[in-house]
């Protein structure tokens, strides 16, 4: 099956800093999503981005499908951005999302 690797595994920032999270995947995909899991455990869908670039406020994402990677950019980070960021991909003809192990982001005030 598809392998999904996220980097870095952990990231600590001061409030106001920018960051880039990376997701590499091992095969062509039909679907790529970024999720944020907040410290209370809730999983929030950030982007559906199988290719191209999208922006939502301080967050943006870019997927280069031909090179099998996606990037999530967080600008002017806030303490509420803390949590785990997951990349998940779906490839082939099935409906199964494969998740990476996530990046744990801690934003300190």
């Amino acid at each position, binding site marked *: 099956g598809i392998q999904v690797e996220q980097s870095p595994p952990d990231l600590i920032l001061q409030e106001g800093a920018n960051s880039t999270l990376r997701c590499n995947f091992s095969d062509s995909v039909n679907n790529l999503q970024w999720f944020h899991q907040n410290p209370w455990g809730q999983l929030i*869908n950030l982007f559906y981005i199988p290719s191209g670039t999208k922006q939502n406020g301080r967050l943006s994402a870019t997927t280069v499908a031909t090179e099998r990677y996606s990037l999530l950019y967080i600008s002017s980070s806030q303490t509420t951005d803390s949590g785990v960021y997951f990349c998940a991909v779906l490839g082939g003809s099935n*409906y199964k999302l494969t998740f990476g192990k996530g990046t744990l982001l801690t934003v300190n005030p």
Partner: protein
Amino acid sequence: DAGITQSPRHKVTETGTPVTLRCHQTENHRYMYWYRQDPGHGLRLIHYSYGVKDTDKGEVSDGYSVSRSKTEDFLLTLESATSSQTSVYFCAISERADTQYFGPGTRLTVL
């Protein structure tokens, strides 16, 4: 937010007992999924459904069964719970097998 609820939200049970977790949606989405989340493993798919009475296995389906008798409900059953099934269980829904929306999760502890 997508209308997804899970019940119960927390459960403690003993090894060998049957357990059923319920996922309920108000979005009329076709696809529904059950995942488990464990430290070091991320989220892993247990079972999914692509329509009423249509289900298929995910990557960690052993020891679990599912049923979907109507669009809005997807049940996950542990026939005989084991300590290895202690986990946080998430339900997700999707309209066209693209963007998935997650429920709040159920924390299950098997003693």
